[in-house]
Every structure is written in structure tokens, then in C-alpha cells.
């Protein structure tokens, strides 16, 4: 549905985006991750046809955004970074304007489409309020509403949850997840838990280049302590350490002030092996846990 084809953008001598290619199909939610200034927004602006790429192109549902921008733009909804809106208009006036621009001109169609997004974005209470009097959360909802008003096949969102409070973030996430099945969605963020919550694919971009393109699960496997197990053992630990050090599945053991962190080779699951060993050798295990391996460290390692 959405395809970036060797996108390159130069700003003078600086290459902001370097040969970025990927495809997003219906049902995919692609999380576009990267440090600030990595080229996320620039890539999205080129995909939406707002910026002209130095080379390469993007296609929305097979239509080239360079060759046939108007047709391509009909197929997606776009929420630009920090959700710019015509602030002097009321919510209804604004949505009415977006409808006319999208060729939804018949009064009946228009009312229907606007009513639909007003409902799904919970805008009933502020319909006739000028946008510049709205809170950040409501503005973002208006931004969402304009992006989905024509029920597009593709949705492109640049930092949709930026600047929202935790409840609003949760709401936006739910909203995006609810549309995931029938659309191809790209969203950029630098909040990693969002990626884990919503996306089935992650692209990490740094210095304009794609570093990683895989599922969040596979990305987590890159964590240095993936599938590690932390043991608290009463009594003598020398024997335990000796056993684990010699084990073929164990990469290393880390002594953490009384606890032992067992890191497996290749991130393999060693839970059962450990249970079995503890039983056989009668270790006095008082606590056993698997430490949380968030994407934060993976991300930090990759983009350092």
C-alpha cells in the first residue's frame, strides 16, 4: 500500500535521508523510530509528497507521488508533526473545509462523514468551538479526525501522541489500534512502549539510514539480556556458579550483589534447564525472575 523507494534527501551538503526503502501492507502498523533529527519527519514528508526527494520516490497504492500527486494524496490521511490546524476556524468549519478539499461536496455525504469522525474522535462537545481555544488533546483529535475523514486506505502520522498526557496517549493508541486491521499505517514516535503496544513492525532510522526493519519481538531479541534469568540463592553459591559457567547454553553469569543473573547464549530460553538443575542439585532458590528487557536499551545500543 505504502512504498518508499530509495528515498534520498539532501540539504546542501547534508544528507538528511539516505536511501530509505520499505513497504507497508494493509494490516501493518509500522513504527518509525529514531532519535530527533534522524530523518523520520523528512521521510514522511517525502512519502506524502510535501517535500520533493533528491532522488527516489514513494508510491501509495501503486500510484507514484511524484508523477501523480493528486491521485496519490486521495489515498492517504496525514497528520503532520505537532498537528497544525487552521486555528481561527471552528471544528465544524475546519472539517467541512477538509471535506470540500477531499471532494466530498454533497451535503448528505458531508454531514455523514463529519458525524462519523466527530463520534469516533469524541469531538461532540467542541463542535462549534474555534480551534485556537481547544486544549492540546482536543487539537490532536481534530488532527486525527481530518486525517481519517475520508476513511483512507493508508494513514501516515508524525508523532501522533507527542505532547499528550498519559490518558490521552492511551486513547490515541486505542484509536490507532482499532483501525489497524483495515489500513496500512505508518507512525513515527520516540516512545518505545508505544511501538510495543501498537506496531507489528519497527524501522529504526538514524542519520538518515535504516538500521533495523523487523518485528518488535525480534527487536527485543537484540537486547543483551534477552531471556536472562535472575536467581536468588540461599547458602553457598560457588557450586552453582561453577555449574552454570560450564553449561553449554549459558553465555555468562553476572554477580549482582547476592543475586545471579544468568545470560543465555543467543537469547535462548533456559528457564526449564535452570529449574531442572535447581531440583537435581538441591539449590536453595528463594527468588527467581526474568528481568524486563525493554526496547530502550536496544534502541540506545543501535543509535549510539
Amino acid at each position, binding site marked *: 500500500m505504502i512504498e518508499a523507494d530509495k528515498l534520498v534527501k539532501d540539504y546542501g551538503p547534508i544528507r538528511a535521508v539516505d536511501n530509505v526503502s520499505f513497504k507497508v501492507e494493509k494490516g501493518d502498523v509500522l513504527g518509525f523510530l529514531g532519535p530527533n533529527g534522524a530523518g523520520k519527519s523528512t521521510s514522511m514528508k517525502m512519502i506524502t509528497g510535501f517535500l520533493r526527494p533528491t532522488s527516489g520516490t514513494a508510491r501509495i497504492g501503486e500510484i507514484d507521488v511524484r508523477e501523480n500527486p493528486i491521485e496519490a494524496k486521495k489515498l492517504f490521511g496525514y497528520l503532520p508533526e505537532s498537528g497544525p490546524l487552521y486555528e481561527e476556524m471552528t471544528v465544524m468549519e475546519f472539517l467541512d473545509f477538509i471535506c470540500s478539499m*477531499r471532494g466530498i461536496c454533497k451535503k448528505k455525504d458531508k454531514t455523514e462523514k463529519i458525524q462519523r469522525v466527530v463520534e469516533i474522535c469524541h469531538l461532540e462537545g467542541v463542535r462549534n468551538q474555534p480551534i485556537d481555544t481547544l486544549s492540546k488533546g482536543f487539537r490532536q483529535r481534530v488532527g486525527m479526525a481530518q486525517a481519517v475523514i475520508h476513511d483512507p486506505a493508508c494513514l501516515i502520522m508524525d508523532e501522533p501522541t507527542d505532547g499528550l498526557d498519559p490518558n490521552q496517549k492511551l486513547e490515541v493508541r486505542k484509536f490507532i489500534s482499532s483501525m489497524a486491521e483495515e489500513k496500512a499505517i505508518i507512525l513515527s514516535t520516540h516512545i518505545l512502549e508505544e511501538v510495543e503496544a501498537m506496531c507489528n513492525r519497527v524501522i529504526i532510522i538514524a542519520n538518515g539510514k535504516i538500521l533495523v526493519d523487523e518485528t518488535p519481538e525480534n527487536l527485543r531479541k537484540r537486547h543483551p539480556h534477552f531471556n536472562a534469568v535472575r536467581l536468588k540463592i540461599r547458602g553457598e553459591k560457588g557450586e552453582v556458579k561453577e555449574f552454570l559457567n560450564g553449561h553449554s547454553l549459558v553465555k555468562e553469569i553476572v554477580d549482582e550483589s547476592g543475586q545471579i543473573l544468568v545470560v543465555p547464549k543467543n537469547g535462548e530460553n533456559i528457564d526449564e534447564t535452570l529449574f531442572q538443575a535447581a531440583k537435581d542439585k538441591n539449590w536453595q532458590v528463594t527468588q527467581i525472575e526474568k528481568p524486563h528487557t525493554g526496547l530502550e536499551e536496544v534502541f540506545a545500543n543501535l543509535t549510539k
Partner: protein
Amino acid sequence: MSAILSIFKREFLSYFRSSLAYVFLIVFILLSISLTWFVGSFFKSDDANLNRFFVFLPWVFAIFTPAVGMRLWAEERKTGTWELLLTLPVSVTQAVVGKFLAGWAFITLALFSTFTMPASVAYLGDPDWGPIISGYFGAILMAGAYLSICSLTSALTKSQVIAFVLGFIICLLLVLSGWSIFSELFSGLPVAIVDAISNFSFITHYESMMRGLITIKDILFFVSLIIFSLILNIVVLER
């Protein structure tokens, strides 16, 4: 076509959604009419025509049009809404034309709100309507030419102030180049060059319309200037 109309409508109404429109209209009316009455000594002239009103319009427009045009693109660039606008299914050409027409319609409205001038002339005397109509027609064309330049300068920057100053300087130069005092400065140059410079002036092309003479040459001048500026405007925005 419907996209141009939607953009036109939004842009035109946005002048009125803030109090900006009313301020602009009042300033324009006060400025153009008070110049006619006080500087142009409209009463003393004892003529039933609007020459003393029209003669100041190129100067008034040189300030008024940049004020109307400065927001066209600079504001969109500043607030980021141009990203929203240009990722909707419209071409840059449609957006530029729609916005330009909205500004032009607003200036035309301002111009029509000076109807008290022809009304007083008609009340006090028996005017020749030909030159009044051609004077208004020429003024609308001239305003379009000014505005196309200001739309271009507005697209060049995020700052409305810079857009205004740039627009004002260019508009002023285009007026001055035809002013007799200004052309005397170049009296050392060959006549052909002085003529060419003054040929670029709005005054040169507006003067005959003010007197009731509409020529193809003058219309072409303004229309081609509008088209040229708008094309540059499109090029600037097609990044």
C-alpha cells in the same frame, strides 16, 4: 476547480474571522478618502470626476496590498498548516490561485467600499461615468498585480513582517519608477532606458485608465505581471 473554490472561500472568510479585515477596511477607506479630500483638495478642484481619488491609489495600494498579502503564505509556513494544505489532494497551482483570488476579492471589496466617492460626485455634479468605471477597473487590475507580488514575497518567508517589508519595497519601486521626479534622477541616461524604466511603473499604465482609456497594452501589462509573479510563487512552493 472545486479545490480552488474551497481554498478561496476559506481564505476569504479567514480575513473576517479575525478582526483583521475590519481594521484593514477602515484604514484603507480613511487613507484613500482623506488623501483625496485633504491632500488632493477634492473640493477646490471643482471637477465632477474622481481623478483626485484615483491618482493616490497607486500609493495607497503600495502599503495596503502588502498588508493584505503578507499573511497569504507566511502565516501558513509559520503555523505549519501549509503541510496540511499541500498534502490534501490539490496542486500547488490550485492553492496559489485560490489564495491569490481570495486576497484579490478582499481588496476589490475594500475598493468598492469607497463608493461614497462616486456617490458624492454624482450628488454634487454631473460626472462622466466612463472614466470613473475605467478608473475602478484599472484599480482592480493594478491591485491584482500588487497582490501577486506580495503573495510571492509572502511565500519566501515565515515572517509576515519580512513579507510585508519586501512586498512594500517592490511595490514602491514599481510606483516610483514612473513618477516624474524619479525619472529626472535618470536624466543622464539615454532616453530609451529611462522610458523602459518608467514603462515598468504602475503609474504609467494606470494613468490612461484613470482618464477613461483602456488599452490592451495596459491590461496585458498587469495581467502578465500577475501571471509571472504567480508562476514564481508556484516555483518557490514546489520544493
